């Protein structure tokens, strides 16, 4: 069996789980946020009654992160709905905006706060919940109705996905990072290349990546239609998880004779910095071949590209340079925000490097303009801007107006592009 099949079999209390089986699995964590939480709560109350209690107050994790810094009253009301529910239910883990418990982007908060553990099943009302497979668990995004069901029962009926294995071996060339690996894969298989499938990433390159870089890869499994992305846990995973939580966990690994729908191999030494052009994450070109493409702004942030390592990579390029276009910095979480002020490159903090390079003052942590959001959202493309972004989607209108264009790239490529004001391979700055 594959790691995905083993985790799902265990969660269903079964010995085996075969692709195509429809099984009831127990959830270890249900995460929701301000955009889908109020609707989930609405479904939960409608179906289980006004006085119903969640199945486990320590397993429902509520992380408002999408529309936090806006004057939109409806958004504030939605966060208030969450606050009221948390109080009524005695929910243990709630990261409340405007208080010291606020954290920021759910998919960076979940692992930071120890809610991701190998071998577990994590459901979230957000498609990028697939991020957490990077820690050796089954994690997938669900809608409000399914989430309302999990809230009341702790269970969900799911179809066991077939697994596509991606084996990436060799040393990544300078200037190439995890984002380039996953964009290359999506470019090769297409935005529906892994529909309904698990995407398992393995090989010496994956093993050499940090935990955060592995998150970047699994984060974008959904952009190929994947149900989940997953990476077998190793010493790095275990050390990371143990530094965040004292809860016990069990590691699973794919069998040597596990059955895969297909296996795709990559030679990491041949990978180059890439970008995904508008309006689809699979419109992948090398940064070098797009080098004369002029841009209006750069955005560095989100669950995909707003982690501390993303900012370290960006700072390594921006140190001692000036940006030519507006460059927006949005740390994913408060912890990342703090690190901008403490982590140093060449004796200078990352914050100071960005300031000296002429970037906009970093915004407080949230999803911000990754998905456009209310019109007063920091970094939102309100006109017809062309934006190179470390985020995950570049559909029409994704970062704001219908006329705007998003180009997806790594933090290294985004920073290099900011310096030149056009798409730029990091080796050219």
């Amino acid at each position, binding site marked *: 069996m594959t790691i995905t099949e083993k985790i799902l079999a265990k969660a269903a209390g079964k010995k085996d789980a075969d692709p195509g089986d429809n099984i009831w699995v127990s959830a270890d964590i249900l995460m929701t946020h301000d955009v889908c939480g109020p609707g989930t709560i609405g479904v939960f109350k409608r179906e289980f009654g006004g006085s119903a209690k969640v199945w486990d107050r320590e397993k429902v994790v509520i992380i408002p992160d999408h529309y936090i810094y806006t004057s939109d009253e409806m958004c504030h009301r939605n966060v208030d709905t969450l606050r009221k529910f948390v109080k009524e239910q005695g929910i243990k883990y709630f990261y409340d905006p405007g208080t010291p418990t606020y954290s920021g982007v759910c998919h960076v908060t979940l692992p930071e706060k120890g809610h991701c553990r190998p071998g577990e099943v994590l459901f979230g009302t957000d498609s990028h919940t697939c991020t957490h497979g990077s820690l050796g668990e089954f994690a997938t995004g669900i*809608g409000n109705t399914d989430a309302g069901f999990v809230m009341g029962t702790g269970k969900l009926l799911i179809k066991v996905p077939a697994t596509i294995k991606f084996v990436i071996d060799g040393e990544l060339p300078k200037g190439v990072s995890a984002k380039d690996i996953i964009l290359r894969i999506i470019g090769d298989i297409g*935005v*529906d290349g892994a*529909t309904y499938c698990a995407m398992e990433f393995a090989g010496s390159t994956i093993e050499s990546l940090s935990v955060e870089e592995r998150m970047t890869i699994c984060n974008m499994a959904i952009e190929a239609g994947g149900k989940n992305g997953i990476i077998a846990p190793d010493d790095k995973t275990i050390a990371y998880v143990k530094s965040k939580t004292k809860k016990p966990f069990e590691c699973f690994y794919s069998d040597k004779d596990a059955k895969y729908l297909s296996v795709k191999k990559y030679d990491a030494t041949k990978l180059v910095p890439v970008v995904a052009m508008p309006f689809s994450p699979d419109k992948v070109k090398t940064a070098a071949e797009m080098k004369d493409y002029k841009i209006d702004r750069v955005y560095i942030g989100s669950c995909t590209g707003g982690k501390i390592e993303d900012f370290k990579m960006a700072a390594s390029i921006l140190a001692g340079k000036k940006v030519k276009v507006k460059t927006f910095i949005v740390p994913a979480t408060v912890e990342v925000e703090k690190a901008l002020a403490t982590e140093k490159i060449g004796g200078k903090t990352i914050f100071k490097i960005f300031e000296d390079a002429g970037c906009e003052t970093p915004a407080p942590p949230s999803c911000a303009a990754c998905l456009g959001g209310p019109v007063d959202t920091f970094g939102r493309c309100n006109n017809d801007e062309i934006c190179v972004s470390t985020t995950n*989607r570049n559909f029409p209108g994704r970062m704001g107006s219908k006329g705007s264009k998003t180009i997806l790239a790594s933090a290294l490529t985004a920073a290099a592009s900011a310096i030149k004001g056009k798409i730029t391979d990091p080796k050219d700055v």
Partner: protein
Amino acid sequence: MSHHNIIKGKIFVVGDNIDTDQIIPAQYLNLVPTNPDEYKKLGSYALCGLPDSYKTRFVKDGEFKTEYPIIIGANNFGCGSSREHAPVSLGAAGTKAVIANSFARIFFRNCIATGEVFPVEATSDILTKELKTGDEVEINLEKNELTVVKTGKTHKLKDIGDVREVVEAGGIFNYARKKGMIK
């Protein structure tokens, strides 16, 4: 899910990869689908994120309902976010079914779980090629057939498969009740 076996009406034809941002742009996600007034409002924004190359609006300005109960999509309909606002906005606008060559996983699942719209796969890509917005069709979900009213030409649709049991029970909650999982 209310299980209407015959759906008849005008179609709205779209292309590949209609993502959830095009179905319901993120600025409208402040609306909560379980609040009746906001549910209705979500309908007015259904498919308003389509690029301006689509000359016909799915829902006319100032209206809450569409005149097209059936959407004909191509590949990977509903890709992107897990926002249930997407099938909800279509359902609220009066959409009964989406026929597409293929669906993205979470969107398909959300259609089934909510019962808002019936997602059916086409057996070939001929529908988006031969049909245009405004044509009238009749869908028979029992026989898995789509008939073009004007020509009488019939196209086979794929069976909804092993989720039919969930669909026929009326969504995930009713299915679980039927199976004795919940009260």
